[in-house]
């Protein structure tokens, strides 16, 4: 029972992990992208439409190759997310718009866009198609049901779960241990200094936002194709906000985000596993991630060591002539 719970938590945490890893990469450049929930929706749209189109060209969903479906889904989601990131950076870097305002609009747009684009699929044969395709995503490397705790905990997931953890670890390493990461952090901490050191602030902000959004978009794909098994539900944006919260909780470190997202995932699904809870107690448990996040925010600001603060230039627009 416990192992099942833990493994479900890990699986569910993936949606947060994609969102927060992407947002961490973006925020490290000093961009506060409140459009992440929208980007996740757009990612779901991209992935689903891509898979749907692929299956349609095949004629019958039974002919699909699992590998092809996964690759097309991932690539389409990445592309959709990258386009959303491009839009956001164009507004905030090139047009120097307020990041909060642009991000909120992007979220509104993304959520509506998802309903608009996928709403048509809901009552058609495409849903059956997506359901079939989702098997390619949920397929674990085990031939049968997991038989012991080890298999349950480590081997029972679909490909996107491993990919999320791999991306998070890679992001952590790149941010901490490469010059690219160092330069990126400098842009987020002190753009004027980075500029003086010969780092192109605009370029880094553009690229990190596009990359971050592409990664976050996979969260939307995961939600539809793995968590829901190809069913269409339009609540992705709520998870997106959770991912934004998770960024604070994990103090802007992707490796912490892995643990944080598992905790958030566990808290999120815990009500379903604690059988003798009343409805109201379940609601309180669902609140915990947010309350914990607020506490982390307060504690870091009060006792804040310098290393756990948000990037100093977070949310600001950089314009060299204003130095």
């Amino acid at each position, binding site marked *: 029972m416990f192992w099942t719970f833990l493994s479900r938590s890990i699986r569910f945490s993936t949606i947060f992990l994609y969102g927060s890893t992407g947002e961490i990469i973006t925020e490290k450049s000093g961009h506060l992208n409140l459009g992440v929930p929208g980007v996740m929706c757009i990612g779901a749209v991209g992935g689903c439409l891509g898979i749907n189109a692929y299956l349609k060209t095949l004629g019958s969903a039974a002919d699909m190759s699992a590998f092809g479906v996964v690759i097309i889904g991932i690539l389409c989601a990445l592309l959709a997310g990258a386009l959303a990131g491009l839009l956001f950076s164009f507004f905030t870097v090139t047009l120097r718009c307020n990041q909060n305002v642009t991000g909120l609009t992007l979220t509104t747009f993304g959520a509506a866009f998802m309903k608009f684009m996928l709403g048509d699929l809901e009552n058609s044969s495409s849903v059956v198609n997506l359901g079939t395709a989702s098997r390619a995503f949920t397929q674990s490397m085990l031939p049968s049901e997991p038989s012991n705790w080890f298999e349950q905990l480590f081997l029972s997931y679909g490909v996107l779960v491993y990919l999320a953890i791999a991306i998070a670890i890679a992001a952590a390493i790149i941010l901490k241990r*490469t010059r690219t990461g160092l330069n990126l952090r400098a842009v987020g901490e002190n753009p004027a200094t980075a500029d003086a050191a*010969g780092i192109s602030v605009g370029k880094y902000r553009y690229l990190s936002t596009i990359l971050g959004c592409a990664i976050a978009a996979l969260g939307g794909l995961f939600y539809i194709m793995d968590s829901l098994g190809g069913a269409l539900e339009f609540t992705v944006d709520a998870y997106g906000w959770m991912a934004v919260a998770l960024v604070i909780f994990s103090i802007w470190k992707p490796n912490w985000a892995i643990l944080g997202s598992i905790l958030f995932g566990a808290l999120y699904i815990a009500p379903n596993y604690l059988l003798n809870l009343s409805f109201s107690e379940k609601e309180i448990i669902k609140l915990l991630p947010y309350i914990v996040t607020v506490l982390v925010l307060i504690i870091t600001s009060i006792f804040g060591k310098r290393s756990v603060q948000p990037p100093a230039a977070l949310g600001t627009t950089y314009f060299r002539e204003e130095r």
Partner: protein
Amino acid sequence: MEKTVAIELRGITKTFGDVVANKNVDLDVYRGEILSILGENGSGKTTLMNMIAGIYFPDEGHIYINGEEVVIKSPKDAFAHRIGMIHQHFKLVDTFSAADNIILGEKCPKFDLKAERAKLVEAHKAENEAYENYDEAEHPGPLAYMKKPKFHSEKETKRRLALMPLTGIWKKIKFNWLAKKRADVVQDIANRFGFKIDLKKKIYDMSVSEKQTVEIIKVLYRGADILILDEPTAVLTPQEIEKLFDVLRNMKAAGKSIIIITHKLNEVMEISDRVAVLRKGEHIATVNTADTNEQQLTEMMVGKKVSLNIDRTEPHDVKNRLVVSGLSAVDPDGVKVLDNVSFEARSGEILGIAGIAGSGQRQLLEAIAGLYKVKEGSITYFDPSKDDAPVDLRSKTPVQIRDLGVRLSFVPEDRLGMGLVGNMDLIDNMMLRSYRKGFMFLDRKSPKKLAETIVEELEVVTPSTHTAVRKLSGGNVQKVLVGREIAASPSVLMAAYPVRGLDINSSYTIYNLLNDQKEKGVAVIFVGEDLDVLIELCDRILVICAGRVTGVVDGRRAIKEQIGLLMTKTSHDVDENQISIDDLHTESENDTANSEGGDAQ
């Protein structure tokens, strides 16, 4: 000795709004020399250098490096031309270690595929030759085979050549990787230059002088050929200065060009080969250090005496209005910005404060106005409406000071960032001082009247009183600010650089206003940078240097050079002219020397 020109500036002009920062400046810097750029504050030294470093872009003029015209649009371009600048305000990321700051933004050396391929072919060829000429008999012993040259078949060479792009990528990845020992590499360089500093420390844990050192190491590490230092010695200890100078001399010997912006004459004499003097944005002259002396440099720096014809009346009814004694303060970094400052401002007098900008003038005025935290000392105000009863102003907030009935007006240096709100119109800016009157709602009638009066009397050029002040020109902004402060009918009026960036007519308006206030019995404190003006306008001039009072001179008898020397030297030099700069700095570090400031009075 044949000298090659490293960098040439021709006709460089730069303006900010209506302030001309540099006007038609021509300047040459040779290889293997140390050039000092000397000038008072506001003379455009830093702006000029910022244009070489890619921070600003000149409005007019050309820059030549090694004889070729270049365009430096960004710091990146400056790097490409091997120009490095150490700014007065550190450009460091606080949360990074020093080593990471130093390697920040470093570019991977270009991997030249063609050249590398050619090199490989050559190497293989050479080894193959060695292989063929190898004679085993010449190398006996059981381990000889290890030294035996290898033969590279044509196939192998071809394979290696085909894989060459991968080597390039691998090198890029390897370069991009931040090894744990990355700090050691930088540390080695630092040690080699004789800097004693732990580069693994985070910047926010560092003292100011350590940060400065990091900046210097950063530029050295980047391998600059032309090194610009903006007042590098201001925060260093004498030992560190000596070391820095040694470093600079070494670099000079290595053929690099070094430009030092400074106003410390003794350092100019000690370190530089030539001195370029700027005044009011113009290049006055460049002289060989060996052919000049401090006296001559001072003259060039401050200019010949000019008659300004400011009416100066004899003060009457002089009484102590504000007495400051033993005032000390430290900035957030823990550096002493005010050191045992004592003086009195008298009613009916203009007290000038002279000094290089950044010597503590701002902090002094803000401390009096209740805006800067005081560590030691006292500020006493003698209230004229209460028979000159003393009022303690130390550590009071501005509101408390006002509530005590102290009529203190303050024209801060930062006009639009502190004294006024740029985005608000004239009327709303008038209200900053008066809005508290009345209940709940604002009274815009009297501020409007005041604004109209000021516009009329001070001839402020503005479309209307509803224009946002940031749209006005510098002179008009200042008239608005001074007009408002005077309207409060103060008994003490403090003005920091009230004519900075103003044209001659507006400046005269301000001088006249200050004189009127003096006539009315106000104690005026005037912080200025133009010595001619200070001498013509002020009754007494307080000279400060590095947060200490180095002398008080009578405005009617003062000689410009005398003030100039007081400004650039600390109290010791004035008292006993023989003490060298090293001792001075040791003293200023030393608390026992604090009283010297007072003695100088």
